[in-house]
């Protein structure tokens, strides 16, 4: 009998959560507990030896958090997932579990500012170096590969550059060198893009954004495809006895979810950036409506982009959902929509852009994205402020760039607020 392949709308509601075994509760219970009892000393030993599946301590695993992990893994078409306290926690967990001193990363230049800092400063401090390359050029990734390269890192849709990564081409470059491609899929969300189906090996998310969708809760998730050959000789930490977990050989023992287990037992256990069960529950309330919300975010953003491109006060618009965008064809090949994120410049330079932001009535000036509310910001003076001018340009941040995360208000009201703020800014 062939098995039903459920669609994203169904997985967003059901994956990872069946009625509670103990109580029959249909909705997901919040297991608000630090710890879980052992049935016996033997049971405890089996759990610590990872010979049985179960919960010990909520820093390692928690049934409410697990529902989120499985749901995002299912939406991404991955084998397994592990959550962290934020998107940055998830990204740090993936990178520090995979890499060690002496290793090298090839990363897209157009990245979220915090990711640039993690690679260029924080990991560098521990002897891991990164080459940043043009995210639109798969050849640039190939040219930057070194014998000690152990990962390629990029965003499927750059924030706020909106650069579209050619996932299949960059995955091929990574695989030619025997290393995994890690894709930050936060901006499109799994409703619009599944990097694993295009060849990515690891996907990371800030679940704070579209996955949660309501701007109330921080969280992050790492998903693994289950198909990377960790035994290719380049990842002894996956194949040799783990000094971090009493000699377990992760790949031999857990096979296609070995990386997730290693993130859990070495990363979460040691660094402790675990997601709170109440936060996982809050995020899951949002995930249930993810595909529905993304349709509206995309259609609203396209209307905003079309409005701005003919507006007399606007100098440029960057939205890959527009047909004239140079990467529009690549976007439509890989994604079912261009997300709610777009960027534009106000004629007259950065001061006019700041004035636009300050003239908005209900569009909120803050640095999150993926909220129900329309959000606006000036990246050069906020999210990317820690980068110097050259790094800002490499990250796709122009001095006059205004970023909009188009929300779910009525499109006529959004266009009205943009128009009146532009008028006020250019008076």
């Amino acid at each position, binding site marked *: 009998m062939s098995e039903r392949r459920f669609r994203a709308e169904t997985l967003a509601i059901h994956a990872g959560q069946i009625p509670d*075994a103990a109580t029959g509760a249909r909705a997901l219970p919040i297991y608000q507990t630090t710890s879980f009892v052992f049935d016996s000393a033997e049971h405890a030993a089996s759990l610590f030896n990872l010979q049985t599946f179960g919960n010990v301590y909520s820093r390692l695993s928690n049934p409410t958090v697990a529902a989120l992990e499985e749901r995002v893994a299912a939406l991404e078409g991955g084998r397994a997932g592990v959550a962290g306290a934020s998107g940055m926690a998830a990204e740090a967990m993936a990178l520090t579990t995979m890499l060690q001193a002496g290793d090298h990363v090839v990363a897209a230049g157009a990245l979220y500012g915090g990711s640039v800092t993690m690679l260029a400063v924080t990991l560098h401090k521990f002897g891991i170096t990164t080459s940043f390359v043009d995210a639109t050029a798969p050849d640039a990734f190939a040219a930057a590969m070194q014998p000690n390269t152990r990962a390629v890192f990029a965003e499927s849709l750059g924030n706020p550059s909106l650069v579209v990564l050619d996932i299949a081409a960059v995955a091929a470059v990574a695989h030619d060198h025997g290393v995994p491609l890690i894709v930050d899929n936060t901006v499109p969300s799994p409703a619009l893009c599944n990097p694993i189906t295009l060849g990515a090996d690891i996907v990371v998310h800030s679940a704070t954004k579209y996955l949660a969708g309501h701007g109330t809760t921080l969280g992050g998730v790492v998903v693994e495809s289950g198909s990377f050959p960790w035994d290719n000789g380049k990842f002894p930490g996956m194949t040799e006895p783990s000094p971090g977990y009493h*000699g377990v050989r992760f790949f031999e*023992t857990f*096979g296609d979810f070995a990386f997730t287990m290693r993130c859990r037992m070495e990363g979460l256990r040691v660094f402790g950036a675990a997601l709170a069960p109440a936060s996982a529950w809050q995020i899951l309330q949002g995930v249930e409506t993810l595909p529905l919300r993304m349709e509206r975010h995309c259609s609203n953003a396209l209307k905003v982009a079309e409005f701005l491109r003919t507006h007399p006060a606007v100098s440029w618009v960057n939205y890959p959902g527009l047909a004239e965008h140079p990467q529009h064809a690549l976007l439509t090949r890989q994604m079912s929509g261009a997300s709610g994120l777009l960027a534009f410049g106000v004629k007259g330079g950065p001061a006019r852009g700041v004035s636009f932001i300050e003239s908005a009535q209900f569009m909120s000036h803050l640095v999150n994205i993926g909220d129900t509310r329309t959000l606006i910001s000036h990246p050069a003076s906020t999210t990317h402020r820690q980068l110097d001018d050259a790094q800002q340009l490499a990250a796709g941040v122009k001095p006059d760039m205004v970023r909009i995360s188009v929300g779910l208000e009525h499109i006529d009201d959004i266009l009205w607020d943009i128009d009146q703020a532009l008028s006020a800014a250019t008076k």
Partner: protein
Amino acid sequence: MADDISTLRRILRSSRTIAVVGLSAEWHRPSYFAAKYMQAKGYRIVPVNPRYDEVLGERCYKTLEEIPFSVDIVDVFRKTADVAPIAASAVAIGATCLWQQLGVLNPEADALARSAGLDSVLDRCVKIEHARLFGGLHWAGVNTRVISARRPVQ
């Protein structure tokens, strides 16, 4: 090969005795992990390995044919190339399922088992599938693909 949820559930529900061919006595080996797990879930584990007399508190047999009682599942932790004769032995002793472990996928053995009326599972871990279908694996964040409005029942 059997790979859908209802068939795997039927195999695991209707079986009580699992002969584990190639079971190691070393605690950190995958075969030991799997057999210990299934033993804790109430299955009788029958070790088959010429290197040992006893594993997991059960007498260890040199061959499947030596086992003096009936066996439901023959669970194979051997190289793919070595599985065909084990499949023939599984048929000969009247087992109901030939289960080739993760990374073990011998099509000849699969065909032999199926033509004799046995269920045949390839490239799957008996422990992981049990935990996937009857609870446990979801706690590790693994995509179980179980979509259901019923409580998990073994």
